């Protein structure tokens, strides 16, 4: 804390700490108590069914943990819940094509995820859930907190108009691309005979290889373009660091020798 008045002269702490990590704002402090109340309510509901102290404790801990992780992983939790529901509720059927209903459902889920992500990014300060988890996050150890980069939130909703309309395009492209991928790699009924793998296993491996290849090729292309546009300073630092990596052992040996000689001279 910065001192005031005459203490400034003798104080050591007249500058704010560097922004190595984000600090929760003071506005969220009431939200913490709100969160405690909700967690206690959730725990009480759990206790009604479990009739035990362990249930209360479990519910309380689960409530706090959920508040802590909801902050940045709201969409992740949402996706996990949807995937869990689909995994538990969907029947297994070996078919090659996706139905229109599946496409609409996937598009609906994607809309939810994209909209959720954008809402949290643009209006994070407005979300009570976020404020709640923000307040809870203060009590987490430093290394569990999000880095400063993840704290990059936008204060206003003023952004390019074209970007708003592309959200629909992104969703359509994502669902269409996924459907295309599933169609490109169909279930091979003869997989057991040809590759000694069950059909869905072969399909999984093929899909993984295809996705990995697309990723690697794209990464290589972008990396090449980026690498060619390095500035002179970046290139110099890179060259020097590569040299240091190559000669690290020798340089350290020389340094230790020098230090030893210096110590002996004393």
């Amino acid at each position, binding site marked *: 804390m910065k001192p005031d008045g005459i203490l400034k002269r003798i104080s*050591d702490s007249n500058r704010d700490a560097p922004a190595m990590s984000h600090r929760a704002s003071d506005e969220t402090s009431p939200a913490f108590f709100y969160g405690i109340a909700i967690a206690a309510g959730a725990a009480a509901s759990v206790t009604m069914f479990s009739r035990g102290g362990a249930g209360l404790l479990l519910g309380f801990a689960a409530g706090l943990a959920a508040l802590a992780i909801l902050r940045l992983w709201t969409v992740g939790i949402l*996706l996990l819940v949807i995937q869990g529901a689909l995994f538990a509720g*969907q029947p297994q059927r070996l078919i090659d094509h996706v139905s229109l209903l599946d496409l609409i459902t996937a598009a609906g889920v994607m809309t939810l995820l994209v909209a959720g992500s954008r809402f949290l*990014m643009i209006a994070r300060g407005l979300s009570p859930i976020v404020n709640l988890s923000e307040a809870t996050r203060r009590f987490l150890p430093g290394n569990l907190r999000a880095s400063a980069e*993840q704290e990059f939130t*936008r204060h206003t909703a003023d952004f390019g108009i074209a970007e708003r309309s592309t959200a629909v395009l992104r969703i359509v492209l994502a669902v269409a691309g*996924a459907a295309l991928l*599933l169609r490109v790699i169909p*279930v091979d009924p003869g997989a057991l005979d040809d590759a000694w793998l069950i059909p869905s296993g072969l399909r999984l491996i093929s899909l993984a290889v295809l996705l990995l290849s697309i990723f690697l090729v794209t990464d290589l292309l972008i990396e090449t373009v980026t690498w060619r546009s390095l500035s002179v300073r970046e290139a110099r630092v890179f060259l020097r660091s590569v040299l240091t990596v190559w000669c*690290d052992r020798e340089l350290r040996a020389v340094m230790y020798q020098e230090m030893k000689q210096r110590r002996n001279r004393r």
Partner: protein
Amino acid sequence: MLLGTVGAGLGVFNAQELLALVSLSVLVWLFFEWVQFRWRADVQLRGLSCERLVNGISSPTGRFWTRRLVRITVRVSPDSSMRIPWLRLEDVLPENMECSDGANIVDGYLQGADPFEFSYTATPRGAGSAILPGVTVRFGDLQGLFFIQRFLPARQSFRVLPTCIGIDTAHPTTKQVNSLPPPGIHRMQRAGMGSELLELREYVPGDPPKSIAWKVSAKRDVLMTRQYESEVPVRTTLFVDASFGTKLGAFGLRPIDQIILLAGSIARSTMSLRDPVGLVCFDNAHTMAVPSGLGERHFYRILDQLTECAVPTQPPLARLTTPLLEHTWATLQDRQPELLLPRVNQLPFRLFPIRPFLRNLNQRRARLTAALTEVYGLPADAPSQLEQDDLRLAALCQRYLTESGLAWTWPVVERRGREVHDWDARFDTLTAALTSAVAHGRDNELFVLLLDLVDYTGSLERLKQVIRLARARHHRVVVICPWPDETLKAKPADSPEKPDTVEDLVERAERTRLVAAAERLKRELRRLGVPVAFAADRRAIQLTLIEADLARSGRSTAGVRR
């Protein structure tokens, strides 16, 4: 991504089409976002350039005045048509400037080839320099998945001159009556070649015959000679303490800021009476003198020299501490983030230390040394040396932080270190400068010593000796010390209020110590006929002007003391 991958794997493996479709859709969406983000961040953002207009001028150098508003307009232009949905721009301000109206951090977007522009108003805090290095661009996608920070250099360097306090000197600057000497020339009550009669004395062989007062000689029957007054200019010499100790603290609150404000104001007031003013700046080792002079040009020369004194140079060496490293890392990450990227700044693999905290600290230090090596153009083996040499790395960190506009506060300097206040060296340079001024000066000069002596608890004998020397040559001496807190009078040290916290107790103790130190200084210097002031306000300037008046008249009455 992990959820998408696991979900797609499970969906395909279990033949659950909808699960596979949803999870693959997430993966494809992430992939598109990643490609678009990398294209924008690594290719398009490099095409941005920045231009800054300060008070409507885009010159790389310029001049500010403390506490006067500066209008800054920043324009970020793309080199070609691009679409960046939103980005956060921050015009990096040094610690010596504060944003007073508007914001130097704004959110915006780029559409097509149109530039993005924003304006704000800032105020310089203290005299010295202010370097506006450029604009930090923070860019992320609209979903909060990816983030990157870049820096657009737009370096502009400004000198910050002190805004002087105007004092009404109440002296006519035009000659009203013929008997008055012209402005800048004062009647001194010592024998000289003036036009006013000082005294009559008996004739001494060698006196010019025209000075013989014939009528008085006839009356007294003895040859009498008329002795005239001197007409002299009163030269004021300002001795400015620019040692390390005066530069400690936040900009605008440092002792040197008060000293410079006082020196500038005294110079302005004195020169408005057409009295010549000289300046001697001294630190722990060096002395820099500006000879006495008059006129607007000379005044700006003095201001320039005072400003030069206030610029923080390389501070005294400090230990390499984790906060110092963290501040350097954070500043470097703000100003030159590209030098710290792991892709560019690679590290050799080392097994030890295994603990994540220490490992992270070591890696950060290694990256920092490589980046500083590039910034200061050190030899290729410097990173390895700096990794082992704590003192050298600490000096480089201090240098980088100081050049980045950080004030001499913790952790840039360790203010408790004895090396910050080298009193012996300070007195050496002061006594040498004052002795030289006395040796080269004429009679009846005014020496204003602007010194930070409040923290000094040792013997003042060396200072007293040189003051005695100046007094013996009929010079007048004024000592003015900067005062850390103007609220001291409002809250006396023996206030009946009970302290509540440890801070209150420490504050009271500090206050008591300062008052005692001030009383001691006053007591010791008053014996020599030297008035002492402890403030950077009008009263201290008026005290100096009163002393100047006394010097002009040649009288020896002591001035008003605070």
